């Protein structure tokens, strides 16, 4: 489906309507919302958690919390899809933190690599996203392209894999101090570039 700005806008409008319906306790609205957003949210969760069982559990928790708290959504919290993705990601990060308390750093990092290979077929970037316009995508790619390799990899490992500073340092073979400064400089230059666009 081509993602024209009009299409994205009408999609967002529909999602906001459905969230409003869910806030009023309408199960039909919840079911329609589930159909529209769950594949994209599930992809996000699989990417960060690497395991289907964990991703399923996180999706269930996140969507039940949407069912209960849809009333707290407002445009101030971003586009509906941003809000939903954020709820899922914060759940996933909590799950990773719980896991980390049980597992040492080594097996965790091995897991990241194994999982990435195993799920390689699932993480291809989609040719035509239903939720983001080509123009937005181009600006983001362009701004990411201006970061240096260390900055870019640090931000992506944190976002997509939920890595900590330590895990990023181990994965890139760089000192933690360097990684921390890559993250901050990366964030600052990304912000500058996106604001100028």
């Amino acid at each position, binding site marked *: 489906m081509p993602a024209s700005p009009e299409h994205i806008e009408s999609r967002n409008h529909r999602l906001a309507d459905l969230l409003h319906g869910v806030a*009023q*306790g309408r*199960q*039909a609205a*919840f*079911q329609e919302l*589930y*159909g529209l957003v*769950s*594949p*994209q949210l*599930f*992809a*996000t969760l*699989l*990417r960060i958690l690497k395991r289907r069982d964990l991703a*399923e559990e996180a*999706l*269930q928790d996140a*969507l*039940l919390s949407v*069912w*209960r708290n849809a009333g707290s959504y407002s445009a*101030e*919290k*971003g*586009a509906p*899809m*941003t809000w939903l*993705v*954020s709820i899922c*990601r*914060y759940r996933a*990060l909590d799950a990773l933190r719980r896991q980390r308390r049980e597992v040492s750093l080594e097996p965790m990092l091995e897991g990241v690599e194994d999982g990435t290979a195993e799920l390689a077929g*699932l*993480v*291809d*970037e*989609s040719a035509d*996203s*239903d*939720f*983001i316009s080509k123009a*937005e*995508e181009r600006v*983001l790619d362009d701004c990411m392209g201006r970061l240096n390799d260390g900055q870019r990899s640090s*931000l*992506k490992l*944190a*976002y*997509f894999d*939920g890595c*900590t*500073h330590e895990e990023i340092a181990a994965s890139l073979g760089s000192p933690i101090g360097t990684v921390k400064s890559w*993250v*901050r400089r990366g*964030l600052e230059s*990304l*912000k500058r570039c*996106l604001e100028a666009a």
Partner: protein
Amino acid sequence: MKYQGKRLHTLLAGEYALGLLKGGARRRFERLLMEIPALRAELTTWEERFAAWSLKLEPVEPPGYLQWRILGRVRADARPRREVLRNTFWRTWAVAATLLLAVLVVAQRMTPSAEHKPSEFALVSDAKGQPLWVISVHPEANRIDMKAVTPNPPPTGKSYELWMLPGSGNPVPMGLMNSDGLASETVTPELLQKLASAKVLAISLEPQGGSPTGLPTGPVLWTAALVAS
């Protein structure tokens, strides 16, 4: 390098959105979010920027049973919640009373003899509250009865299939729904036992003759809670 004030807040918001703040730093940031409205806006901006990455991932359809499990939980959650919504309070009670009456009337008519009294009921109704089926469980007769209250045939080439959602694991097929009159389905004692712990039934739209996979393949059209008679 030292970061201070607004510049530091912007960076902290970005790191929080990435998931890089941990322990005490994360809690301090969450506390600041409550105090400084502008920080919330800063965080949303970062979330928006990064969410774009998630939205570019190729979508992955979650397994069918997950939808069932989640809808079952939502359904179970919905009943107590509706009662606290003040503006619909009385209407809810009026509808509930009408439905209960419908259940009792239909149940009396469909119970052939006293020794096979149903143990549980479920009322399936459409979005407007119009009752479609009354489903009753008769453990002594190893039987489930489905009474179509309002004739409701599936679209051509399709069937409505009944499922039970156990506490854990996949939905269990319980047979096809009749579109009018009364139909009975014989069930095994094992299935009845499972049914006693399940609290939710669901009906999905399937190819004619029912799901070819043994798991729901079409959309869930209705769910209904089981109540003890």
